[in-house]
């Protein structure tokens, strides 16, 4: 589904990604762990198409298509989704209006008919109930005044509604208490299927107790330095990242 080949990216001359190679097949859930500053969030933004980064080498293929040639909205329409670490507040845009506009914009780009308001409302209601997203949160401006947990649940609601083929979850566990972590994880697990793949970026192993990955990668200094199964995450939790950062970390 997704192939990243020798990807190099930099910001204002600072090299952040230094040759990422990663292949994710349909239905697989991969986790990327790594210390602060290893380039995890940069990888997620580069996948989504944020233009603060300069790609100096390498390629990203999604179902064989060159992702780096696509605008962010085109990537979304072909089925890529980034659940953001810091979902942005947008005053003046009602959450519900935003959801409907996003869904219908994607459908329009794909040449599908618009979802009519009653059908849309029904779907949103079903999904929001499962994620404990209240009617009031749907009426409010997008993410404005939402708690950390509410923002993350709202991200997963968007993911569930937009039904992407490939999801990147960038530190979705940060800022969540135990209950919110469970709700978010259940929401994510409900979306696991043979046609949908995920890339989960996290600092901590805890999230991976809830969302069990098929493959775990360790990222350090802009490269993937080790890959293994879910036990690798447990090992990291125990030993820390010192082995992968030249032993400097305490």
């Amino acid at each position, binding site marked *: 589904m997704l192939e990243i080949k020798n990807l190099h990216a930099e910001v204002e001359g600072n090299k952040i990604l230094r040759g990422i190679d990663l292949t994710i097949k349909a239905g697989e859930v991969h986790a990327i762990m790594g210390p602060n500053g290893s380039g995890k969030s940069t990888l997620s933004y580069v996948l989504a198409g944020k233009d603060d980064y300069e790609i100096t080498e390498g390629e990203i293929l999604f179902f064989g298509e060159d992702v780096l040639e696509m*605008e*962010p*909205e085109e990537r979304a329409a072909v089925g890529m989704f980034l659940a953001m670490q810091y979902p942005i507040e947008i005053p*003046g845009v009602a959450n519900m209006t935003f959801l409907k506009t996003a869904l219908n914009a994607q459908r329009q780009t794909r040449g599908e008919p618009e979802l009519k308001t009653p059908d849309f409302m029904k779907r949103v209601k079903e999904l929001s109930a499962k994620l404990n997203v209240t009617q009031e949160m749907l009426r409010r401006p997008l993410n404005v005044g939402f708690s950390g947990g509410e923002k993350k649940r709202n991200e997963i609601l*968007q993911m569930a509604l*937009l039904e992407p083929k490939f999801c990147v979850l960038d530190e979705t566990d940060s800022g969540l208490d135990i209950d919110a972590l469970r709700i978010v994880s259940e929401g994510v697990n409900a979306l696991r299927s043979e046609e949908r793949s995920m890339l989960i970026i996290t600092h901590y192993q805890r999230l991976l107790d809830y969302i069990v990955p098929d493959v775990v990668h360790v990222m350090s200094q802009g490269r993937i330095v080790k890959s293994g199964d879910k036990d690798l995450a447990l090992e990291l939790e125990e030993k820390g990242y010192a082995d992968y950062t030249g032993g400097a970390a305490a």
Partner: protein
Amino acid sequence: MTLTVVKTPSEEALAALLDGAQAALPGKDFASVRADAVEKFRSEGLPNRRVEEWKYSDLKRVMPKDLSLAGEVSADNISKQMAVVPRLRGLDCDRLVLVNGVFRADLSDLDALQGKVSLTPVSKALEEGAFVLDELEIAKGDRALTLNTALLQDGVILDVADGVELERPIEILSLMIGGGLATTRNRVSVGKGAKAFILETFVGDEQAYQVNEAIDFRIADGASLSVSRLLSEGVNALHLGSTTAILGEKSHFEHFTMSTGGQFTRNTAFIKFTGEFSDAELFGATIIGRNQHSDQTLLVDHAVPNCNSKEQYRTVMDDKAQGVFQGKIFVRQPAQKTDGQMMSQALLLSEDAAFFNKPELEIFADDVQCAHGATCGELDEDLLFYLRARGIPLDKAKKMLVLAFLAEAVEHVSNDAVVDALEGFIADWLGLDH
């Protein structure tokens, strides 16, 4: 004594028009007041960039030199224009209509408000010698008002009786058709403890025309008045608008201006507190493009203690548009415990657009809270990215953010139906579904 400093062709044209029109204008008793105003214009000429208050809005440069009074229009033509001009639609309201500066009783209906609101056309009051200018000190000598007095044709005088609470807005709609100059002055008095909502609408066709309109709000003790003012003039219009408001004790005044239209628009509001424990909230949303020019000028006069004023204006400019905000809060020496907050925020969508932002405070009392702020920026890249990352194309994402920026000002309007209609109006302007 004749002091004539008229220079430019447009000033000469306007002077000729002023002289020629005097005999035909209503109200013999008002003639000397007009004559004074004409004389004042002759000595001062049109305001231009050398006059501080008009520094960014040079009327001398934009006033056309072929000037005439707007003419009569057929009923057929009026209904045609009413159907196509961009305005708030689907609102449940009572309506008064002025066409080319003349009140049209045949198109207006206030019957439902009999006993609650009285209506007198200004032309009738002028003829009967009953029209008295009620100028504010801070508005004295204002150039647009001087011209208004010199050419005053008509308008409506509305009196909302004491204690009456009106359920739906009264719209005063001004329509311009076929070009020419029109001059009106309206007055709305809200009686003690009364409550009203006024919607002012300015629309017109694509001909070059000039509107000079003024409206005076007199808000009695304990009264509450909300005003939403929609400037949706035709693409070639020149609009000079002056609003004055006098607030009594424990009164409330909410004033919202939505401006999209016209080639050149200058809007001035003069607000004066004369009774304690009153609030004025003044908001505005402007969105302009092409080479439009829009100026919002504001003077708030705190003359008595314990009053609050809050001003929040948002301006969006695209292409080569120019926006101006000038806001001044006076706090006179007796006006202790004044709370005055003024904010002007601008969003520039193009590198060729320009905004002049001039907030001022003049404070003579020592126990007050006053603040002003001004910002000028572009659309936030992070917000755009978030919307695009969810599949919303760039152009649509930009429009959504512009609507959101202005909606924050619109949402201060206290009538939900008007808020919906205004947001729909902006969405239409932007070409967004809603």
